[in-house]
């Protein structure tokens, strides 16, 4: 199929449409036995016209035909350690560090050091756990927002919200990122509770440790253990900065 050489130049040229030649149809044109009529055609999804292209698409998905482009090898760098205070994890690839950083240090609550998978969940947590204004408003109106992005429902209590998540959004009843605050403790106590929850000494900044989940005691017994030393909420050591206890070893369980 030889294409006229001027065609490539036309493609590279300026946009424009041809001035159409005059159209002049004869009534005899469509007369039987001739039945041609110029018309556009549309094909629906399952039409067999698409078979060949669809098969090519799926061969590609199955990786059989040639790849579209090659990706360069992931570069290794000289070993370096995480710069966050208290964390000494070492890495030799930037992507590994990226994942580590975002998982452990990315969306971390500065009040209680819990890590969250996304900014959205972190914001929700801070609002519901550490904002006293929220508590006041929650007494009078629905403040607990549904956790699913795009759902604008709000609820009176976190329990109602959980029920909504389970019934409406088919979330698991033990969804890990929706731990309710028990009772109406002031925000300050949360920091000690966070320490109490951590089991393994090395997991300083963590949320609840996963492996303990199946056997985690219900929250009330732990609460009883840490009602001792409360810092009044009016005292803040660094203008809202995190109360940085680096190691939870200090925070051993007190009777």
């Amino acid at each position, binding site marked *: 199929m030889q294409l*006229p050489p001027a*065609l*490539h130049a036309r493609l590279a040229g300026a946009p424009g449409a041809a001035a159409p030649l005059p159209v002049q149809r004869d009534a005899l044109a469509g007369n039987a036995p001739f039945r041609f009529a110029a018309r556009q055609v549309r094909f629906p999804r399952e039409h067999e016209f698409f078979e060949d292209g669809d098969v090519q698409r799926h061969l*590609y998905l*199955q*990786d059989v035909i040639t790849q579209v482009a090659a990706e360069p090898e992931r570069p290794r760098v000289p070993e370096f350690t995480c710069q966050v205070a208290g964390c000494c994890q070492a890495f030799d690839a930037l992507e590994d560090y990226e994942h580590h950083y975002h998982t452990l240090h990315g969306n971390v609550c500065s009040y209680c050091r819990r*890590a969250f998978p996304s900014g959205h969940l972190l914001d929700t947590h801070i609002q519901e756990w550490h904002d006293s204004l929220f508590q006041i408003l929650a007494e009078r109106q629905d403040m607990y927002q549904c956790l699913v992005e795009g759902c604008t429902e709000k609820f009176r209590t976190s329990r109602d919200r959980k029920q909504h998540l389970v019934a409406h959004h*088919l979330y698991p009843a033990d969804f890990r990122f929706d731990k309710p605050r028990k009772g109406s403790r002031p925000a300050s106590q949360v920091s000690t509770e966070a320490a109490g929850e951590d089991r393994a000494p090395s997991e300083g900044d963590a949320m609840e440790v996963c492996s303990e989940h199946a056997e985690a005691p219900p929250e009330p017994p732990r609460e009883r253990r840490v009602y001792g030393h409360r810092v009044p909420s009016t005292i803040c050591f660094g203008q809202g900065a995190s109360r940085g206890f680096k190691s939870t070893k200090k925070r051993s369980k007190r009777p």
Partner: protein
Amino acid sequence: MWRGRRGLLRPSGCGVEELRCRRREREAALRKARREQQLVSKRLLRDEATEEAEGGRVVVILGEAQIQEFLRLAQRGIEEKERERALVSLRRGLQHPETQQTFIRLEGSIRTLVGLLTSNKALLQLEAARCLHELSHSEQSAVAEACLPATSYLLTYLSGHSSDFIELCLYTLGNLIVESEAVRRQLLPQGIVPALAACIQSPHLTVLEALGYALSQLLQAKEAPEKIIPLVLGSTLPQHILQLLQPGPKLNLGVAVEFAWCLHYIICSQVNNALLITQGALTTLGLLLLDLAAAVQRTEDAGLELLVCPVVRCLSNLLTEAAAETVGGPMHLQDERVLAALFILLQFFLHKQPSLLPEGLWLLNNLTANSPSFCTSLISLDLIEPLLHLLSVSNVVSVLVLTVLCNVAEKGPAYCQHLWPGLLLPTLLDTLALSDTEVVGQSVELLQLLFLYQPGGVCRTQGSNFGVSYCRQTLYRLSHQGSPIIQ
């Protein structure tokens, strides 16, 4: 874009002939699946670099006791490296279907895996996600559906920031999506569409490609036109998709391929194409077509047809919408460069993928059917003869070529005047000798139009009445050969 993925466990000594044979088998299987409306494909994301570091691709079948031991170590191990190694061993074992079966039958196994997935240990998280991914890729429904408890977490992690992890979650979700309607019935209320709409703003190409894959799987579902596409059209996804298809230096081929297919599934379902047109779909796709035509001339890049195909389909179907016909408006596709681009692509198809010629010609039909301007361009750009060269490819192609020529001829004498000279008439008469009734029928239609609108002073360029009398003689001969259509 492609992480050196070379397909499942390809044996090292595989010859070219064996590969071709495998490909033919797969192709046959896919055709059969499509005819039964069961066309489903999963994508496996395996990092070759990691695999090589792990010393080859030996896949070990793990027994119940071994799986339990690995899970125990991963969960309770003291040393982090030890926990990681245990998960890696588990993941490698899960590449085998038998291990997968054993795994899902073990009580608490998925629960433990999900626990590791949501732990705060980055590397354990990744390995747990890889284990889930292996399971999601299984062809056994029971295995894939065993991953369901993890979906709410996979969706939650889409709004995180670790691109590797998100990519893995997306491919896993994509595999689960095609598994069954039951899975989708869970994912939709869990908010998969808003989650994808938020995630599509990621700057990472690997994430975008994975997202495109997952979305294309969602849109391919049987119930998509009623249940899924309206949700997608109501979100910000279409705008982002069109943005990602803008031609230019930032266009990434792998990403574009996925989203072009997404767009195709949306458009051919005909839910609300007018909306897409108001969002500039015609303009974007038209410009992309021009870009692709330029690209196929530049490089021998394998795989461009993977993008050209859905773009052609989208354009062609969109042109049939009423909203596309607003003449003079910005959405109206009238640029004759589109025609130039299409012919360059037709030539490309002819060499690379002849089975896609009908689709290209279908677009040509939709461009020319109601457009005197495009028909004029066909003439002025000297494209009639190249079109005729396609007549020998196949019957389907021939019918389409003749239809396009009829589109031109039916517009009257001013157009036919340009069709008479040249190869058209002799070639047309040759096609009459063919046996395919559709081809012959279309040829006759064209002939009728040519004769009806024959310029006064017939065939001046051919001298005397040669052309007309030759036609008459041929028709006479053919009708006596028993061709009913000619009669």
